[in-house]
């Protein structure tokens, strides 16, 4: 009973929305990349590096906005580097992704020890500013007044619009589906792949920044596989922003539930809830739950 009343509370809803935000940002990041035909498992790394970047630049400049902009720049820079590897040099995207993830996770571990002599986390810093008048709304004020959370909701429409209603989106998708056909019509295939990867870096950075800002500190392992969950959500969402939105909401709901379960202490093991997103993803891939199909030229260097 206690659990049910908790679930239908506004606090719970706010919790779900907070957990949803980094997932949806990450999943859209992944989607822009894969729509252009680049499998990018380095999203995890992009989120780590941008969370760290936000932490460092905010601490050293004392200004959250500078932290935000620098972190975005940092992640975009890394995404250019990633594009150099997978688009220009045509290196296997998975292996490059593993390498980038190791590098960025390593950088984070190293820098917090080096700069703050702590093996686990940075000192506390300020979070991003909120929309002042919305902040005072009871229960969900913190969510409603958060720019990034609001942006992630807007992303549902923005992504859909860009991918399916603009010239840019049409061309981006064409290089992910059949680069030869695109090229035969004069589309610069590699340029569009670069766009896809860089947009991916930008959106993933917002996910990382938000997590750091929300926690007011960066700690080692704080991204905790969210980049991979984002990819899972993208797969379950069949590479469509609307479906991805639902998948992310579902994952966020499970996670919020897990937290509530831990508080109330029920018999359902939290690990089982934790693994649900991944399990569902595999089941979807096998075809037990609906059919899913990646962009036809996804992962193939061109």
């Amino acid at each position, binding site marked *: 009973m206690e659990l049910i009343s908790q679930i239908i509370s506004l606090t719970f809803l706010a919790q779900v929305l907070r957990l949803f935000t980094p997932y949806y940002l990450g999943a859209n990041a992944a989607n822009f990349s894969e729509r252009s035909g680049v499998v990018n498992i380095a999203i995890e790394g992009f989120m780590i590096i941008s969370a760290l970047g936000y932490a460092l630049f905010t601490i050293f400049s004392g200004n959250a906005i500078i932290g935000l902009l620098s972190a975005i720049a940092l992640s975009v820079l890394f995404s250019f580097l990633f594009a150099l590897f997978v688009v220009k040099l045509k290196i296997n995207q*998975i292996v490059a992704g593993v390498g980038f993830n190791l590098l960025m996770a390593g950088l984070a571990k190293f820098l917090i020890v*080096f700069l703050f002599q702590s093996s686990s986390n940075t000192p506390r810093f300020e979070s991003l500013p909120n929309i002042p008048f919305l902040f005072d709304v009871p229960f969900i004020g913190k969510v409603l007044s958060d720019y990034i959370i609001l942006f992630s909701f807007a992303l549902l429409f923005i992504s859909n619009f860009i991918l399916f209603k603009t010239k840019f989106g049409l061309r981006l998708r064409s290089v992910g589906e059949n680069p030869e056909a695109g090229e035969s019509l004069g589309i610069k295939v590699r340029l569009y792949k670069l766009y896809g990867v860089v947009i991916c870096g930008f959106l993933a950075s917002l996910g990382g920044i938000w997590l750091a800002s929300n926690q007011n500190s960066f700690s080692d392992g704080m991204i905790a596989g969210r980049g991979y969950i984002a990819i899972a959500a993208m797969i379950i969402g069949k590479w469509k922003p609307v479906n991805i939105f639902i998948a992310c909401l579902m994952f966020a709901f499970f996670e919020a539930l897990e937290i509530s379960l831990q508080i109330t202490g029920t018999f359902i093991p939290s690990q089982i809830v934790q693994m649900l997103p991944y399990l569902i993803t595999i089941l979807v891939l*096998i075809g037990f739950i609906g059919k899913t199909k990646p962009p036809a030229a996804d992962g193939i260097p061109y």
Partner: protein
Amino acid sequence: MVLQVNKKIKANIISISISVALTFLITIIIFLIIGKNPLEVFSMMFADVFGSGYGFGQTLFKATPLIICGCGLAICFHASLFNIGAEGQLNAGSFVIGLIAYYLSGYSFLIAIPLALIGGFVISGLLGLIPAIIKVKKGVSEVITTIMMNFIVLALINFFLIDFFAVKSTVHTEKISDAIMIPKFSDFFPMFRGSSLNLVFIVSIILAFATYYFIYKTKIGYEIRAVGYNETASKYIGIKINKTILLSFFIGAGLTSLVGLNFIMGYKGYYEFGFSNNLGFTAIAVALLAKNNPIGIIFSALLFGFLDYGGLSVNTLVPKEIMFVIQGVVILTILSVDKLVEKYYLKNNYWN
């Protein structure tokens, strides 16, 4: 091993040397940026690793699981199967090894160790079979399934461990009996005193040679590599593709379980959650650097072991976490240098 000097092997040697050199260069630049004297750091590292039996032993000890896991992954990679799931596979196998060894603690090591190994191998191997079957039957790439399975497997282990098998308020299993612990080097050679280096290191070297033999000297090994190079041609040549994929995944994943032997029977005496510390990913770098050649893996694992222990030894000068950065740098340099060598050195062969 006959040294076949042809252009491809030369190219491999060139790209490995350039990568290692480049990585060192980048490391030096990092040291300079953070205001440390690279010479001081490196000399301290070398002094510690090669100056004492302990340091040397620890380096070999750190290299052991990398050799084992690198060999397992090499088999998958030779078949062009991107097994990103080693982290889950090796943990599951080790967990089972720890459990079996504990429950057979009363028996002779002749019974306990083989049974534990078989149990661990089978569990890890079966976990490898799942993505293989999904790939063969449904045509789903093994990459995403193995990544997802890492999380599932680790969550499951965590669940079984905490709820059933762990010593209260810890994340490790019960300790196995000393009778089935594997002897340490220091038992025979006092110079290694204090080091955890144990006989599993020898096992890992034997394993590397055995894997080399398997990949390069047996028919099955040839078939695995043929499928990895060209699936269509392999089909027309008469190789059973699906069988080969399943087999490589089973053996490759199964082998990763042997890291448990080193940690459990050679070191701690129990399985501990999180012991692997991303070993399954680091081993990808190890195998990649060695071009999936098991003999080369011994050396690249030693290099990584050197970085790992050396990192610890210079911790007072540079945080040991620098080694995680270097691992990432190694992968990325070898990948990019490889492509450049392929393009500019092998260009004559490349478009043929």
